[in-house]
């Protein structure tokens, strides 16, 4: 579609909103070529490719959808707005940036084949490649576009890092139907996604995709080997977090904050990551989400939201839980998250305040940074970030923090630093879960067979009693033995009341019945 054609179309639109999107969808229905392949087969992997264009007068709009898919107008609006950075980075006008978002979809007319790999089919993901380049034909001389893949799968490293970020930028700025047709023609020949290893040819590269048996155990059943230097195959671990802890640690005023983040995620308490660009905040969510594995994060996680996120829309009733992990770049959203009309005023309930991870500036290299300095957006957000002083429960491992500090100062690669952080917290989680596992195993071995329903016979009193007798491998804060025990009990109590515990239990029941069926 040519630029002039589009501008005339756009000028007819008096406003932007769902109606515009609906009309745009109708237009596209007429011009998008019919697909020559099985859309159902394509949808085992993804729903559609979308090109969004930023129209200076009207805001973001859909330029192209392939294959044509009857998205709901609300979904199109969500996709349009979440596919662009919320703020401009004036220093960097021409670099591509990639990020992802997650939304609760309402497109009832799009049928997606069910898959054991998709645990929340009500959510879809948008993987975006945002590009800005000089374009003399438009106002302000810069054209902005986002190439988006919409998929039901949480495969960020495949879609965002390989498909979009490495392959598609080789191509022209404009939406090319030949490109999208080619992409789809290749994907329909891919095998159905399943746990294990799959070779997926795509635009001259071969992706060697590894999907673990269970999302909570991303390494289970996978052989990890160093990638060969040659161009193929490219090893991709589907559920690995994207981004690096190095970048996060460099923004934290103090690396001990990692423990606060960890505890909040484990207890499923609200966290908001504020960054300058959508890539960083979405990567933070991906990393944080991974930190507590094998405990499945029980809240609503959103790698990147804007003011137009579906999380705020009336039909969803807003973020109706206080269990969320959200990435933002616009500080005004903090206020919005606090003022849900349908809810009791949160200001009186400080425990529901989200913990804000400020990733907007690197922490100074030398010396301490005053905690107060971490609130550059206090004014505009109308929200006091300074007041957050959560104390935390788990005792810090100074050996680990020293190692991390040295790794960050030295020349350790981002990959190595991520590995260090992930290993430390995976070990911590394993020790944390050990008393619970012990409790359940004695509950089960009382009967001879493994009965998943036994898990439901959980008694907090019994468990805490057992905990106080045997203790936990996790060290808790406190000067005296008594204080430490109190802290330990309080933390486990909190966990057992959190949705994390319920989700974890559910996962154990599911795994137990799976292994029973396999017998």
């Amino acid at each position: 579609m040519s630029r002039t054609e589009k501008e005339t179309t756009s000028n007819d639109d008096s406003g932007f909103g769902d109606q515009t999107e609906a009309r745009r969808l109708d237009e596209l229905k007429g011009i998008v070529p019919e697909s020559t392949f099985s859309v159902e087969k394509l949808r085992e992997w993804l729903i559609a490719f979308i090109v969004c264009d930023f129209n200076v007068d009207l805001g973001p709009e859909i330029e192209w959808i392939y294959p044509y898919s009857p998205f709901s107008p609300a979904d199109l609006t969500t996709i349009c707005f979440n596919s662009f950075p919320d703020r401009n980075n004036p220093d960097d006008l021409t670099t591509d940036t990639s990020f992802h978002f997650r939304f609760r979809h309402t497109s009832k007319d799009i049928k997606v084949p069910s898959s054991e790999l998709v645990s929340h089919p009500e959510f879809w993901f948008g993987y975006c490649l945002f590009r800005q380049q000089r374009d003399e034909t438009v106002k302000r001389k810069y054209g902005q576009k986002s190439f988006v893949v919409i998929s039901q799968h949480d495969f960020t490293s495949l879609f965002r890092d390989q498909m979009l970020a490495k392959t598609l930028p080789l191509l022209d700025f404009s939406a090319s139907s030949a490109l999208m047709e080619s992409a789809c023609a290749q994907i329909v020949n891919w095998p159905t996604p399943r746990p294990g290893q799959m070779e997926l040819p795509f635009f001259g590269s071969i992706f060697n995709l590894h999907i673990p048996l269970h999302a909570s155990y991303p390494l289970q059943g996978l052989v990890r080997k160093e990638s060969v230097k040659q161009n193929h195959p490219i090893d991709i671990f589907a559920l690995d977090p994207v981004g690096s802890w190095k970048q996060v640690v460099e923004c934290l005023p103090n690396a001990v904050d990692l423990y606060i983040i960890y505890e909040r995620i484990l207890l499923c308490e609200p966290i908001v990551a504020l960054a300058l660009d959508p890539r960083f905040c979405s990567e933070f969510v991906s990393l944080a989400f991974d930190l507590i594995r094998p405990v499945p994060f029980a809240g609503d996680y959103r790698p990147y939201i804007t003011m137009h996120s579906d999380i705020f829309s009336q039909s969803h009733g807003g973020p109706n839980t206080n269990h969320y992990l959200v990435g933002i770049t616009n500080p005004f959203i903090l206020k919005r998250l606090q003022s849900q009309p349908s809810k009791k005023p949160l200001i009186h309930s400080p425990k529901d305040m989200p913990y804000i991870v400020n990733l907007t500036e690197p922490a100074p290299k030398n010396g301490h940074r005053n905690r107060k300095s971490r609130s550059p957006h206090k004014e505009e957000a109308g929200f006091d970030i300074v007041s957050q002083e959560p104390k935390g429960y788990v005792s810090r491992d100074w050996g680990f923090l020293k190692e991390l500090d040295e790794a960050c100062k030295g020349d350790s690669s981002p990959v190595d630093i991520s590995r260090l952080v992930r290993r430390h917290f995976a070990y911590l989680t394993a020790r944390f879960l050990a008393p619970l596992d012990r409790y359940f195993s004695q509950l089960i071995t009382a009967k001879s067979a493994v009965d998943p329903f036994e898990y439901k016979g959980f008694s907090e009193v019994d468990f805490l009693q057992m905990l106080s007798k045997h203790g936990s491998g996790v060290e808790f804060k406190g000067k005296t033995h008594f204080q430490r025990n109190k802290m330990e009990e309080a933390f486990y109590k909190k966990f057992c009341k959190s949705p994390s515990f319920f989700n974890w239990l559910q996962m154990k029941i599911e795994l137990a019945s799976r292994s029973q069926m396999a017998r």
Partner: protein
Amino acid sequence: MAEGGPKPSSSVKLVLLGEAAVGKSSLVLRFVNDDFQENREPTIGAAFLTQKCNLPSRTIKFEIWDTAGQERFASLAPMYYRNAQSALVVYDLTKASSLAKAKHWVAELQRQASPGIVIALVGNKLDLTSQSTGLENSMGGLSLSAAAGDGDEEEEEEGDARQITTAEAKSYADEEGLLFFETSAKTGHNVQEVFTAIANAIPESTLKTRGGPGSNRAGNGTGGDTFGSGGVNLSAVGETNKDGCAC
């Protein structure tokens, strides 16, 4: 294979380029499945297939990217030939314009693809020419061109749709240092030979070996990439061909 130790095995990326409807996909189908279909649907984007080729000293696993010939897909071609170790540029020897397009692809590959890329120029649809019969059992592509020449025989036969003489294409291929074959995907004539010749022409140093280490380096005299030396080779390879490229 029932041979002693495992032969070293390596993957070779191969891309097919050429005008629409010259028979790229048919060549691949013949090579991979030993099959032929009339009136195939045009390829969208590109198809990906693999096929092993057993040489005396090693196994080559071709990773074949069969690109769409339609003009609207032309801009995507660089994604496919990027890092390719070999290319098969196909024209239809009954269609003059298709050689021009082939030359265009050869020039683009020489300019933009990996420096050591092995390129084979292939004139397909030999079955539509008078040469199609009686020559199937000849020694190989090159000898075909040399022996048959552009002599009278061709012109005598009726219904010869040939528009590009062997000599014309051959001299171009020689000039550019390309392997050269005339094939018929329909009869299978010379198809195996093209791929075997490419496998032999890939310099061993560019191969990523996956098989037994320190294996036989005294290869098969594949030094030359040019048509001439490749040709000498062909007859030797021809003997191993039956248990060769497994199709």
